[in-house]
């Protein structure tokens, strides 16, 4: 069996369980290594023990003896009793849902890059977080939303409007809750902010006026 074939059988649940086993092992071992006092150690270790044993049981459920396997694997829900009445109707609903679903092509597909939508969403979010940390959310929100909506081929003016709206939300967070969203941990573009507002004056004096008024009131 090749390595690829071996990994093909691995499910996301198994990866998740392995990660949780690793995490719970850390929670079990760390208090011993760092010599935590009893009142700081017992509770997390107890809970880590439950997670560790539970995850191991779930991971090896196919190899467990009958009754134990039932306990580990079988779905137990007190709400499933009424399913008989609803089953048929739910099936019809699902059928209808799938028939109405349409998926327009993504921007990348034009260039031969077919990326799973969920993966794209997570990767973009992580990039947005990293860029926000490095340069401040105020400056990276607009390109993030613009890029996201462009990828999904949302009409350009809707995407741009949403990007401006999202940036305005971040700006409100910054002004009203006094958050340093204009400063990143690596880059500090905050000294340029007055120039940006001045530039805004040329684009729309009314908008720049209201922004200045709000800023004056807050500060």
């Amino acid at each position, binding site marked *: 069996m090749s390595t690829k074939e071996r990994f093909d059988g691995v499910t996301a*649940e198994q990866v998740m369980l392995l990660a949780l086993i690793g995490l719970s092992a850390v929670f079990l071992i760390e208090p011993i290594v760092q010599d935590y006092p009893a009142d*700081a150690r017992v509770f997390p270790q107890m809970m880590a023990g439950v997670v560790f044993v539970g995850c191991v049981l779930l991971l090896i459920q196919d190899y467990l003896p009958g009754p134990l396997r039932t*306990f580990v694997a079988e779905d137990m829900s007190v*709400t499933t009793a009424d399913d008989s009445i609803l089953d048929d109707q739910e099936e019809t609903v699902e059928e209808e849902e799938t028939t109405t679903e349409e998926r327009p092509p993504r921007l990348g597909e034009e260039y031969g890059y077919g990326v799973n939508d969920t993966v794209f969403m*997570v990767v973009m*979010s992580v990039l947005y977080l990293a860029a926000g940390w490095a340069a401040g959310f105020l400056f990276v929100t607009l390109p993030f939303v613009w890029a*996201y909506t462009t990828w999904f081929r949302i009409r350009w003016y809707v995407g741009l409007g949403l990007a401006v709206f999202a940036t305005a939300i971040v700006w409100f967070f910054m002004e009203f809750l006094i958050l340093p969203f204009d400063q990143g941990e690596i880059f500090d573009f905050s000294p340029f902010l007055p120039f940006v507002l001045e530039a805004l004056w040329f684009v729309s004096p009314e908008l720049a006026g209201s922004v200045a008024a709000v800023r004056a009131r807050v500060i």
Partner: protein
Amino acid sequence: MAVDAFFDGLSIAIGPEALLWLTVGLLLGIVLGALPGIGSPVGMAIVLPLTLPLESTMALILLIAIYSGAMFGGSIAAILINAPGTESAAATTLDGYPMSKNGLAKNALAIATTASALNGFLAAIILLLISPVLIQVVLAFGSPEYFLLAILGISLITIVTQGSIVKGLVAGALGFMISTIGTGILSPRPRYTFGQFGLYDGIDFVAALIGMFAFAEMMKLAAKSQIAEADVSLGGSIKEGVRTVFKYPKTTVKSGLIGMGIGMIPGSGATTSTFVAYAEEARSSAKDGRFGEGDPRGVIAPEAANNPTVSGSLIPTLSFGIPGSGSTAVLLGGILMHGLQPGPVLFDEQLQITYALFISLFLGNVLILAVGLTVIPYASRLTELDTNVIIPAVVVLSFAGAYTLNQNWFDVMAVVVLGVLGFYMVQYNYSVIAFVLGIVLGPIAEENFFRSLQISGGDYAIFVDPLNRPLSFLLSVLILLILVGPFLKPYLERKIDRV
């Protein structure tokens, strides 16, 4: 004292500020509920950090109003495009969408509004009436009972939600485990921080809520790539819809009571109550019913059940800190974030806050009726929004909100990490509510666990002592029965059959 507290609560609830937040919350809730994939827990989780500058009662009124509004809003998308805005509206699609296809969309929406508001209204009155009894029950609880109650809550969730019991326990214990990151509760010593200063305060449970609900939900929405663009025609009559609800008073009241009863059970939530109410109505009206083809009783039953579930789930949330659903888990997060403690204090020294919340719920349902019936002609516009427009907006709000909590980048990272974890947990039937409950209740459970051991001098028998602590013993037996019961049931049934 209760009467004084009631009038104090009333003066808070009918004050201009409370009414403003109630209206804002309801409108926001209706909009968020009507957007497929958002719903009440996501909406509440996003709004939660924004309530930081608000006074605690106002913040809670806003959150409860969003919850109530989303319960109604969820039915808009369910009826018009067959995509429930909230999980609790899933049962409404069964007859609501066929009604819409039969040209009776306005009737269905008016039925949903009236049934939802009417029963929410009745449930709020019941809640006000039974609160004096609740006070007595809550005051009987001590440290061991509170610890056991947290365990009981998670145990109940594991058997109420789908999936194996072991999965539920793993989820709950994982939540408890994550909650211990940061400075210890009893001895102020950093735990599991690995030298990272940002982890000294632990992972904020509000950030965890945002991750598990908002971010995970957005991942789910992206996976579905469901675009809610459909030909929506709003036919029918609002007046006729309102009249229909009064034509079936038995269905309305019965479903409302089912909703409130199930709402009181931790973990069950509105999804369970609406399906149970629908199934009960389908069973009792089997002779003349046309369920699944647009029978109005198929809309009345789930909608009459969903809003009373909000009232019902407030009982375990406020009295014991055990949320009944994802939304009440977020609400509990809000209660704790604003420095309030669920339990005896909310029913004793701060009873006026509790009454203010109940009265707001009552007023909120009056508003739902007024606002709901007014927005029906414009409802279809909400469902035409593209989900790929919603996702980046929610991501921006989630990250900014998480950072707002403590100005800590670890909280923002927690949103992504726990969001991804939540996404897979949902996919493989692990109870997200048990996990969230673990995170939210972790510090309370740990503190009460150690306080119990301090009382008993380290003797674990304090949790199972029938003579000195009968309530603890009863709770321990209940936990055992809940966990082992489902497996013993078939064995006992076989034995009884043989006899």
